[in-house]
Protein backbone atom coordinates (compact mmCIF):
# COMPACT_ATOMS: atom_id res chain seq x y z
CA UNK A 1 0.00 0.00 0.00
CA UNK A 2 1.26 3.50 -0.73
CA UNK A 3 2.38 5.60 2.21
CA UNK A 4 0.21 8.59 3.08
CA UNK A 5 1.31 11.57 1.05
CA UNK A 6 1.39 15.12 2.21
CA UNK A 7 0.56 16.19 -1.29
CA UNK A 8 -1.59 14.17 -3.67
CA UNK A 9 -1.55 15.78 -7.05
CA UNK A 10 -0.91 14.79 -10.59
CA UNK A 11 -1.46 17.90 -12.61
CA UNK A 12 -1.05 17.57 -16.34
CA UNK A 13 2.49 18.65 -17.21
CA UNK A 14 2.68 22.23 -18.40
CA UNK A 15 -0.99 22.94 -17.77
CA UNK A 16 -2.01 25.35 -15.05
CA UNK A 17 -4.68 23.61 -12.95
CA UNK A 18 -8.02 25.41 -12.76
CA UNK A 19 -8.33 24.46 -9.10
CA UNK A 20 -5.36 24.01 -6.79
CA UNK A 21 -5.73 22.92 -3.18
CA UNK A 22 -2.56 22.72 -1.14
CA UNK A 23 -2.01 21.01 2.18
CA UNK A 24 -5.58 21.37 3.44
CA UNK A 25 -6.18 20.71 7.12
CA UNK A 26 -9.82 20.87 8.20
CA UNK A 27 -11.31 20.10 11.61
CA UNK A 28 -14.92 19.25 12.36
CA UNK A 29 -16.15 19.67 15.94
CA UNK A 30 -12.55 20.00 17.03
CA UNK A 31 -11.40 16.74 15.44
CA UNK A 32 -9.04 16.71 12.47
CA UNK A 33 -10.76 15.35 9.36
CA UNK A 34 -8.44 16.51 6.57
CA UNK A 35 -4.76 16.19 7.37
CA UNK A 36 -2.78 17.72 4.58
CA UNK A 37 -4.74 17.03 1.41
CA UNK A 38 -3.63 18.54 -1.87
CA UNK A 39 -5.57 18.28 -5.09
CA UNK A 40 -5.20 19.81 -8.54
CA UNK A 41 -8.01 19.83 -11.10
CA UNK A 42 -7.32 20.77 -14.71
CA UNK A 43 -9.87 21.84 -17.32
CA UNK A 44 -11.88 18.92 -18.65
CA UNK A 45 -10.40 16.48 -16.16
CA UNK A 46 -12.74 14.03 -14.39
CA UNK A 47 -11.47 13.04 -10.96
CA UNK A 48 -12.89 10.26 -8.81
CA UNK A 49 -12.70 10.73 -5.07
CA UNK A 50 -12.68 7.36 -3.35
CA UNK A 51 -12.47 6.18 0.23
CA UNK A 52 -14.51 4.50 2.92
CA UNK A 53 -17.23 6.49 4.67
CA UNK A 54 -15.79 8.97 7.15
CA UNK A 55 -12.40 9.33 5.44
CA UNK A 56 -12.89 12.98 4.47
CA UNK A 57 -14.35 12.97 0.93
CA UNK A 58 -17.34 15.19 1.68
CA UNK A 59 -15.29 17.39 4.01
CA UNK A 60 -12.75 17.94 1.23
CA UNK A 61 -15.53 19.00 -1.14
CA UNK A 62 -17.08 21.28 1.47
CA UNK A 63 -13.68 22.81 2.18
CA UNK A 64 -13.10 23.52 -1.51
CA UNK A 65 -16.49 25.24 -1.62
CA UNK A 66 -15.86 27.31 1.50
CA UNK A 67 -18.71 25.61 3.35
CA UNK A 68 -16.22 24.67 6.06
CA UNK A 69 -12.96 26.52 6.59
CA UNK A 70 -9.55 24.90 6.39
CA UNK A 71 -7.42 25.46 9.50
CA UNK A 72 -4.36 25.39 7.29
CA UNK A 73 -3.64 25.25 3.58
CA UNK A 74 -4.49 27.23 0.47
CA UNK A 75 -7.08 27.04 -2.29
CA UNK A 76 -6.68 28.74 -5.67
CA UNK A 77 -9.47 28.68 -8.23
CA UNK A 78 -9.16 30.22 -11.68
CA UNK A 79 -5.97 31.91 -10.54
CA UNK A 80 -7.56 33.55 -7.48
CA UNK A 81 -6.80 32.83 -3.87
CA UNK A 82 -10.12 31.50 -2.55
CA UNK A 83 -8.92 30.19 0.80
CA UNK A 84 -11.01 32.67 2.76
CA UNK A 85 -13.55 33.45 0.03
CA UNK A 86 -17.28 33.21 0.61
CA UNK A 87 -19.08 30.20 -0.90
CA UNK A 88 -21.26 32.21 -3.27
CA UNK A 89 -18.19 33.89 -4.76
CA UNK A 90 -16.40 30.57 -5.14
CA UNK A 91 -19.39 29.02 -6.87
CA UNK A 92 -19.68 31.98 -9.25
CA UNK A 93 -16.20 31.27 -10.50
CA UNK A 94 -17.76 28.26 -12.18
CA UNK A 95 -18.61 25.39 -9.84
CA UNK A 96 -21.79 23.29 -9.98
CA UNK A 97 -22.45 21.17 -6.91
CA UNK A 98 -24.88 18.30 -6.36
CA UNK A 99 -24.48 17.65 -2.64
CA UNK A 100 -24.95 14.45 -0.72
CA UNK A 101 -28.53 14.73 0.52
CA UNK A 102 -29.44 16.63 -2.65
CA UNK A 103 -30.43 19.98 -1.12
CA UNK A 104 -33.53 20.41 -3.25
CA UNK A 105 -35.67 23.46 -2.48
CA UNK A 106 -38.85 21.67 -1.40
CA UNK A 107 -41.23 24.58 -1.94
CA UNK A 108 -40.02 25.41 -5.43
CA UNK A 109 -41.19 23.49 -8.47
CA UNK A 110 -38.81 21.36 -10.48
CA UNK A 111 -38.76 24.05 -13.16
CA UNK A 112 -37.96 26.73 -10.57
CA UNK A 113 -35.25 24.60 -8.97
CA UNK A 114 -33.61 24.28 -12.37
CA UNK A 115 -34.08 27.77 -13.78
CA UNK A 116 -32.98 29.55 -10.59
CA UNK A 117 -29.53 28.00 -11.10
CA UNK A 118 -29.30 28.84 -14.80
CA UNK A 119 -26.44 31.05 -15.88
CA UNK A 120 -24.02 31.08 -18.80
CA UNK A 121 -20.29 30.83 -18.41
CA UNK A 122 -18.39 34.09 -18.12
CA UNK A 123 -17.60 33.80 -21.86
CA UNK A 124 -21.32 33.63 -22.61
CA UNK A 125 -21.43 29.98 -23.68
CA UNK A 126 -24.45 28.06 -22.48
CA UNK A 127 -24.15 24.37 -23.23
CA UNK A 128 -26.63 23.31 -20.55
CA UNK A 129 -30.17 24.66 -20.88
CA UNK A 130 -33.46 23.52 -19.41
CA UNK A 131 -34.15 21.59 -22.61
CA UNK A 132 -30.77 19.86 -22.56
CA UNK A 133 -31.12 18.85 -18.90
CA UNK A 134 -34.60 17.45 -19.59
CA UNK A 135 -33.18 15.48 -22.51
CA UNK A 136 -30.77 13.81 -20.12
CA UNK A 137 -33.37 13.29 -17.40
CA UNK A 138 -36.68 12.86 -19.28
CA UNK A 139 -38.34 11.61 -16.07
CA UNK A 140 -38.30 15.22 -14.86
CA UNK A 141 -40.42 16.44 -17.80
CA UNK A 142 -43.70 15.24 -16.34
CA UNK A 143 -42.73 16.55 -12.91
CA UNK A 144 -41.81 20.07 -14.05
CA UNK A 145 -44.60 21.80 -12.15
CA UNK A 146 -44.35 19.57 -9.08
CA UNK A 147 -42.88 20.91 -5.87
CA UNK A 148 -39.49 19.50 -4.91
CA UNK A 149 -40.99 17.80 -1.87
CA UNK A 150 -43.28 15.71 -4.09
CA UNK A 151 -40.42 14.02 -5.92
CA UNK A 152 -39.13 10.57 -5.12
CA UNK A 153 -35.57 10.26 -3.84
CA UNK A 154 -34.21 9.31 -7.25
CA UNK A 155 -36.04 12.15 -8.96
CA UNK A 156 -34.52 14.54 -6.43
CA UNK A 157 -31.09 13.18 -7.31
CA UNK A 158 -31.73 13.84 -11.01
CA UNK A 159 -32.91 17.34 -10.13
CA UNK A 160 -29.81 18.00 -8.02
CA UNK A 161 -27.50 16.97 -10.86
CA UNK A 162 -29.57 18.85 -13.43
CA UNK A 163 -29.49 21.99 -11.28
CA UNK A 164 -25.71 21.76 -10.98
CA UNK A 165 -25.43 21.46 -14.78
CA UNK A 166 -27.72 24.46 -15.34
CA UNK A 167 -24.96 26.67 -13.92
CA UNK A 168 -22.80 25.68 -16.92
CA UNK A 169 -19.91 25.09 -14.54
CA UNK A 170 -16.23 24.75 -15.31
CA UNK A 171 -16.14 22.18 -12.50
CA UNK A 172 -19.01 19.86 -11.64
CA UNK A 173 -18.91 18.27 -8.19
CA UNK A 174 -21.16 15.26 -7.59
CA UNK A 175 -21.18 13.88 -4.05
CA UNK A 176 -22.70 10.37 -4.16
CA UNK A 177 -23.42 10.83 -7.85
CA UNK A 178 -25.80 7.92 -8.41
CA UNK A 179 -27.26 7.40 -4.96
CA UNK A 180 -30.91 6.45 -5.16
CA UNK A 181 -30.88 6.13 -8.95
CA UNK A 182 -32.22 3.11 -10.77
CA UNK A 183 -29.45 1.29 -12.67
CA UNK A 184 -30.63 2.61 -16.03
CA UNK A 185 -30.41 6.19 -14.78
CA UNK A 186 -27.09 5.62 -13.08
CA UNK A 187 -25.77 4.63 -16.52
CA UNK A 188 -27.17 7.87 -17.91
CA UNK A 189 -25.31 9.92 -15.29
CA UNK A 190 -22.06 8.10 -16.07
CA UNK A 191 -22.55 8.73 -19.78
CA UNK A 192 -23.12 12.44 -19.08
CA UNK A 193 -19.86 12.46 -17.16
CA UNK A 194 -18.08 10.77 -20.02
CA UNK A 195 -19.38 13.51 -22.32
CA UNK A 196 -18.04 16.25 -20.06
CA UNK A 197 -14.51 15.36 -21.00
CA UNK A 198 -15.25 16.76 -24.41
CA UNK A 199 -17.05 19.83 -23.11
CA UNK A 200 -14.21 21.55 -21.22
CA UNK A 201 -15.91 20.78 -17.96
CA UNK A 202 -13.97 19.21 -15.14
CA UNK A 203 -15.61 16.97 -12.58
CA UNK A 204 -15.02 15.66 -9.08
CA UNK A 205 -17.13 12.58 -8.47
CA UNK A 206 -17.81 10.63 -5.31
CA UNK A 207 -19.72 7.37 -5.69
CA UNK A 208 -19.88 4.10 -3.80
CA UNK A 209 -19.43 2.08 -7.00
CA UNK A 210 -15.69 2.39 -7.38
CA UNK A 211 -15.56 0.40 -10.61
CA UNK A 212 -17.92 2.86 -12.29
CA UNK A 213 -15.83 5.72 -10.93
CA UNK A 214 -12.66 4.18 -12.35
CA UNK A 215 -14.33 3.56 -15.69
CA UNK A 216 -15.59 7.12 -16.10
CA UNK A 217 -12.84 9.32 -14.72
CA UNK A 218 -9.34 10.28 -15.84
CA UNK A 219 -7.79 10.14 -12.41
CA UNK A 220 -8.70 8.86 -8.97
CA UNK A 221 -7.65 10.01 -5.54
CA UNK A 222 -8.14 7.71 -2.55
CA UNK A 223 -8.51 9.23 0.90
CA UNK A 224 -7.83 7.42 4.13
CA UNK A 225 -8.10 9.11 7.51
CA UNK A 226 -7.97 12.51 5.93
CA UNK A 227 -4.89 11.90 3.80
CA UNK A 228 -4.31 11.02 0.16
CA UNK A 229 -2.98 7.48 0.08
CA UNK A 230 -3.37 6.73 -3.61
CA UNK A 231 -3.50 9.07 -6.57
CA UNK A 232 -3.12 8.19 -10.20
CA UNK A 233 -4.68 7.71 -13.61
CA UNK A 234 -7.87 5.65 -13.34
CA UNK A 235 -6.64 3.31 -16.06
CA UNK A 236 -3.59 2.48 -13.91
CA UNK A 237 -5.59 2.06 -10.73
CA UNK A 238 -7.88 -0.41 -12.48
CA UNK A 239 -4.86 -2.70 -12.69
CA UNK A 240 -4.22 -2.30 -8.95
CA UNK A 241 -7.62 -3.57 -7.89
CA UNK A 242 -6.35 -5.63 -4.95
CA UNK A 243 -4.70 -2.58 -3.41
CA UNK A 244 -7.77 -0.51 -4.08
CA UNK A 245 -10.26 -2.99 -2.66
CA UNK A 246 -8.15 -3.28 0.50
CA UNK A 247 -8.25 0.49 0.92
CA UNK A 248 -11.97 0.69 0.23
CA UNK A 249 -12.88 -2.34 2.33
CA UNK A 250 -14.64 -4.06 -0.56
Amino acid at each position, binding site marked *: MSQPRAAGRTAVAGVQPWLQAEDLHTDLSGSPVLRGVSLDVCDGEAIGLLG*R*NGMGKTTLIRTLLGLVRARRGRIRIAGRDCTAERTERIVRLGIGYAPEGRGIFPNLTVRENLTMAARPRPDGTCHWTLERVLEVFPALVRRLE*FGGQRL*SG*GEQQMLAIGRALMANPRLLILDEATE*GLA*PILAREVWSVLAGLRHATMAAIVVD*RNFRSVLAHTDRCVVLQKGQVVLDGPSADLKRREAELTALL*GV
Partner: protein
Amino acid sequence: MRTHDVKLHYRGLKAVDGVTMELASGSIHALIGTNGAGKSTLVGLLSGEYWPSDGQVELDGMDVTDWRQPRRSRAGVGRSYQHSSVFPQLSALENCRLCAHACRHGWRHWLGAASGGGAGLSAAQAALERTGLAGVGAHPAGALSHGTRRQLEIAMCLACQPRILLLDEPLAGMGPEETERMLALLQSLRHDHAILLVEHDMDAVFRVADRITVMADGQVLASGSPAQIRDNATVRTAYLGEDTA
Protein backbone atom coordinates in the same frame (compact mmCIF):
# COMPACT_ATOMS: atom_id res chain seq x y z
CA MET B 1 -49.73 -8.45 4.63
CA ARG B 2 -51.52 -7.92 1.33
CA THR B 3 -52.65 -5.18 -0.96
CA HIS B 4 -55.54 -5.65 -3.38
CA ASP B 5 -55.59 -3.38 -6.41
CA VAL B 6 -54.44 -0.51 -4.23
CA LYS B 7 -54.31 2.97 -5.80
CA LEU B 8 -53.19 6.40 -4.75
CA HIS B 9 -54.05 9.17 -7.16
CA TYR B 10 -53.59 12.81 -6.25
CA ARG B 11 -53.59 16.02 -8.25
CA GLY B 12 -53.63 14.06 -11.48
CA LEU B 13 -50.68 11.87 -10.53
CA LYS B 14 -51.22 8.12 -10.44
CA ALA B 15 -48.50 7.47 -7.87
CA VAL B 16 -49.71 3.93 -7.25
CA ASP B 17 -52.12 2.52 -9.77
CA GLY B 18 -53.61 -0.84 -8.97
CA VAL B 19 -50.94 -2.82 -7.11
CA THR B 20 -51.68 -6.26 -5.73
CA MET B 21 -48.89 -7.86 -3.74
CA GLU B 22 -48.25 -10.02 -0.72
CA LEU B 23 -45.57 -10.05 1.99
CA ALA B 24 -44.98 -13.45 3.54
CA SER B 25 -43.42 -14.09 6.92
CA GLY B 26 -39.90 -15.51 6.80
CA SER B 27 -38.98 -13.93 3.51
CA ILE B 28 -37.45 -10.85 1.95
CA HIS B 29 -39.54 -9.30 -0.80
CA ALA B 30 -37.59 -6.72 -2.78
CA LEU B 31 -39.39 -3.83 -4.43
CA ILE B 32 -37.41 -2.28 -7.25
CA GLY B 33 -38.30 0.03 -10.11
CA THR B 34 -37.50 3.19 -11.97
CA ASN B 35 -37.25 6.46 -10.09
CA GLY B 36 -40.71 7.84 -9.40
CA ALA B 37 -42.31 4.46 -10.05
CA GLY B 38 -44.24 4.67 -6.76
CA LYS B 39 -42.17 2.39 -4.53
CA SER B 40 -41.94 4.71 -1.53
CA THR B 41 -45.59 5.67 -1.94
CA LEU B 42 -46.52 1.99 -1.85
CA VAL B 43 -44.47 1.62 1.34
CA GLY B 44 -46.44 4.58 2.72
CA LEU B 45 -49.70 2.83 1.82
CA LEU B 46 -48.57 -0.31 3.62
CA SER B 47 -47.39 1.56 6.71
CA GLY B 48 -50.56 3.66 6.94
CA GLU B 49 -48.77 6.92 6.24
CA TYR B 50 -51.03 7.34 3.22
CA TRP B 51 -54.54 6.12 2.68
CA PRO B 52 -55.36 4.69 -0.73
CA SER B 53 -57.80 6.31 -3.14
CA ASP B 54 -59.03 2.82 -3.91
CA GLY B 55 -58.24 -0.80 -3.10
CA GLN B 56 -57.56 -2.62 0.14
CA VAL B 57 -54.72 -3.29 2.54
CA GLU B 58 -54.93 -6.45 4.66
CA LEU B 59 -52.99 -7.57 7.69
CA ASP B 60 -53.48 -11.13 8.92
CA GLY B 61 -56.65 -11.31 6.82
CA MET B 62 -58.06 -8.16 8.46
CA ASP B 63 -58.95 -5.11 6.43
CA VAL B 64 -56.66 -2.37 7.78
CA THR B 65 -57.13 0.06 4.89
CA ASP B 66 -58.53 2.76 7.18
CA TRP B 67 -56.06 2.25 10.00
CA ARG B 68 -53.70 5.12 10.64
CA GLN B 69 -49.97 4.61 10.96
CA PRO B 70 -49.79 4.39 14.80
CA ARG B 71 -52.43 1.67 14.86
CA ARG B 72 -50.66 -0.32 12.14
CA SER B 73 -47.41 0.14 13.98
CA ARG B 74 -48.96 -1.30 17.14
CA ALA B 75 -50.29 -4.18 15.03
CA GLY B 76 -46.74 -5.03 13.96
CA VAL B 77 -45.87 -2.94 10.91
CA GLY B 78 -42.53 -1.13 11.18
CA ARG B 79 -40.89 1.08 8.59
CA SER B 80 -37.62 2.90 8.00
CA TYR B 81 -37.15 5.90 5.74
CA GLN B 82 -34.89 6.77 2.80
CA HIS B 83 -33.24 9.51 4.81
CA SER B 84 -31.87 9.25 8.29
CA SER B 85 -34.60 9.79 10.85
CA VAL B 86 -32.87 9.58 14.22
CA PHE B 87 -32.75 12.17 17.01
CA PRO B 88 -29.07 13.10 16.80
CA GLN B 89 -28.67 14.46 20.32
CA LEU B 90 -30.22 11.42 21.97
CA SER B 91 -28.27 8.24 22.54
CA ALA B 92 -28.88 5.15 20.44
CA LEU B 93 -30.67 3.55 23.40
CA GLU B 94 -32.82 6.64 23.96
CA ASN B 95 -33.83 6.66 20.29
CA CYS B 96 -34.96 3.05 20.61
CA ARG B 97 -36.75 3.73 23.89
CA LEU B 98 -38.68 6.56 22.31
CA CYS B 99 -39.89 4.23 19.58
CA ALA B 100 -40.79 1.50 22.04
CA HIS B 101 -42.72 4.00 24.13
CA ALA B 102 -44.43 5.62 21.15
CA CYS B 103 -45.66 2.26 19.88
CA ARG B 104 -47.26 1.48 23.20
CA HIS B 105 -48.44 4.89 24.39
CA GLY B 106 -48.27 7.27 21.45
CA TRP B 107 -46.18 10.41 21.78
CA ARG B 108 -47.49 11.45 25.21
CA HIS B 109 -44.69 12.12 27.68
CA TRP B 110 -42.27 10.90 25.06
CA LEU B 111 -39.27 12.99 26.09
CA GLY B 112 -39.43 11.51 29.57
CA ALA B 113 -39.72 8.10 27.97
CA ALA B 114 -36.34 8.48 26.28
CA SER B 115 -34.33 8.74 29.47
CA GLY B 116 -36.61 7.67 32.32
CA GLY B 117 -37.26 4.22 33.67
CA GLY B 118 -40.18 1.95 32.95
CA ALA B 119 -41.49 -0.01 30.05
CA GLY B 120 -39.65 0.06 26.76
CA LEU B 121 -36.16 -0.31 28.18
CA SER B 122 -35.98 -4.05 27.68
CA ALA B 123 -37.44 -3.79 24.16
CA ALA B 124 -34.92 -1.07 23.32
CA GLN B 125 -32.01 -3.07 24.70
CA ALA B 126 -33.15 -6.19 22.85
CA ALA B 127 -33.39 -4.20 19.60
CA LEU B 128 -29.85 -2.87 19.99
CA GLU B 129 -28.60 -6.36 20.82
CA ARG B 130 -30.32 -7.81 17.77
CA THR B 131 -28.78 -5.27 15.45
CA GLY B 132 -25.30 -5.59 16.95
CA LEU B 133 -25.40 -2.10 18.45
CA ALA B 134 -25.39 -2.94 22.16
CA GLY B 135 -21.88 -1.52 22.41
CA VAL B 136 -22.92 1.93 21.16
CA GLY B 137 -26.15 2.25 23.14
CA ALA B 138 -24.82 5.22 25.11
CA HIS B 139 -23.39 7.04 22.09
CA PRO B 140 -25.27 10.05 20.70
CA ALA B 141 -26.98 8.95 17.49
CA GLY B 142 -25.56 11.96 15.65
CA ALA B 143 -22.01 10.80 16.39
CA LEU B 144 -22.52 7.38 14.83
CA SER B 145 -21.16 6.60 11.37
CA HIS B 146 -23.64 6.63 8.49
CA GLY B 147 -23.84 2.84 8.33
CA THR B 148 -24.32 2.45 12.08
CA ARG B 149 -27.01 5.12 12.03
CA ARG B 150 -28.87 3.17 9.35
CA GLN B 151 -28.63 0.07 11.54
CA LEU B 152 -29.96 2.13 14.43
CA GLU B 153 -33.01 3.01 12.35
CA ILE B 154 -33.73 -0.68 11.99
CA ALA B 155 -33.17 -1.13 15.73
CA MET B 156 -35.72 1.65 16.28
CA CYS B 157 -38.20 -0.32 14.16
CA LEU B 158 -37.41 -3.50 16.11
CA ALA B 159 -37.99 -1.72 19.43
CA CYS B 160 -41.67 -1.71 18.44
CA GLN B 161 -41.47 -5.50 18.05
CA PRO B 162 -42.87 -5.58 14.51
CA ARG B 163 -43.61 -8.66 12.46
CA ILE B 164 -43.33 -6.74 9.20
CA LEU B 165 -40.41 -4.51 8.28
CA LEU B 166 -40.77 -2.01 5.46
CA LEU B 167 -37.26 -0.81 4.66
CA ASP B 168 -36.84 2.07 2.22
CA GLU B 169 -33.32 2.05 0.72
CA PRO B 170 -31.50 0.94 3.87
CA LEU B 171 -28.23 0.62 1.92
CA ALA B 172 -28.23 4.16 0.53
CA GLY B 173 -24.86 5.86 0.97
CA MET B 174 -23.23 2.83 2.56
CA GLY B 175 -19.74 1.65 1.86
CA PRO B 176 -18.98 -1.98 1.02
CA GLU B 177 -18.28 -3.08 4.61
CA GLU B 178 -21.38 -1.36 5.93
CA THR B 179 -23.42 -2.94 3.13
CA GLU B 180 -22.18 -6.40 4.11
CA ARG B 181 -23.09 -5.76 7.73
CA MET B 182 -26.56 -4.60 6.80
CA LEU B 183 -27.17 -7.56 4.49
CA ALA B 184 -26.12 -9.95 7.27
CA LEU B 185 -28.56 -8.18 9.58
CA LEU B 186 -31.39 -8.51 7.04
CA GLN B 187 -30.60 -12.20 6.59
CA SER B 188 -30.81 -12.71 10.34
CA LEU B 189 -34.12 -10.82 10.57
CA ARG B 190 -35.82 -12.68 7.75
CA HIS B 191 -36.48 -15.75 9.92
CA ASP B 192 -39.05 -14.06 12.12
CA HIS B 193 -40.17 -11.13 10.00
CA ALA B 194 -41.74 -10.38 6.66
CA ILE B 195 -39.39 -7.86 5.06
CA LEU B 196 -40.14 -5.49 2.20
CA LEU B 197 -36.86 -4.12 0.86
CA VAL B 198 -36.86 -1.11 -1.46
CA GLU B 199 -33.38 -0.91 -2.95
CA HIS B 200 -31.46 0.08 -6.06
CA ASP B 201 -28.35 -1.96 -5.26
CA MET B 202 -29.04 -4.86 -7.59
CA ASP B 203 -26.16 -7.01 -6.33
CA ALA B 204 -27.64 -6.81 -2.85
CA VAL B 205 -31.21 -7.38 -4.04
CA PHE B 206 -30.34 -10.47 -6.03
CA ARG B 207 -28.31 -11.83 -3.12
CA VAL B 208 -30.93 -11.61 -0.39
CA ALA B 209 -34.38 -11.44 -1.98
CA ASP B 210 -36.72 -14.42 -2.10
CA ARG B 211 -39.08 -12.57 -4.37
CA ILE B 212 -38.80 -9.39 -6.41
CA THR B 213 -41.54 -7.05 -7.59
CA VAL B 214 -40.66 -4.47 -10.22
CA MET B 215 -42.71 -1.27 -10.47
CA ALA B 216 -43.01 1.27 -13.27
CA ASP B 217 -45.45 4.19 -13.48
CA GLY B 218 -47.28 3.14 -10.33
CA GLN B 219 -47.95 -0.37 -11.58
CA VAL B 220 -46.36 -3.78 -11.23
CA LEU B 221 -44.19 -4.44 -14.25
CA ALA B 222 -43.15 -7.92 -13.15
CA SER B 223 -43.03 -10.08 -10.05
CA GLY B 224 -41.26 -13.37 -9.45
CA SER B 225 -38.18 -15.10 -8.15
CA PRO B 226 -34.79 -13.41 -8.61
CA ALA B 227 -34.05 -15.81 -11.49
CA GLN B 228 -37.33 -14.96 -13.21
CA ILE B 229 -36.71 -11.23 -12.83
CA ARG B 230 -33.14 -11.53 -14.07
CA ASP B 231 -34.41 -13.27 -17.20
CA ASN B 232 -37.26 -10.84 -17.80
CA ALA B 233 -36.38 -8.91 -20.96
CA THR B 234 -38.71 -5.99 -20.16
CA VAL B 235 -37.12 -5.51 -16.75
CA ARG B 236 -33.63 -5.75 -18.15
CA THR B 237 -34.35 -3.12 -20.76
CA ALA B 238 -36.58 -0.75 -18.80
CA TYR B 239 -34.92 -0.86 -15.41
CA LEU B 240 -31.48 -2.36 -15.55
CA GLY B 241 -30.69 -0.63 -18.85
CA GLU B 242 -29.16 -3.77 -20.29
CA ASP B 243 -29.12 -4.56 -23.96
CA THR B 244 -31.15 -7.74 -24.35
CA ALA B 245 -30.62 -8.08 -28.07
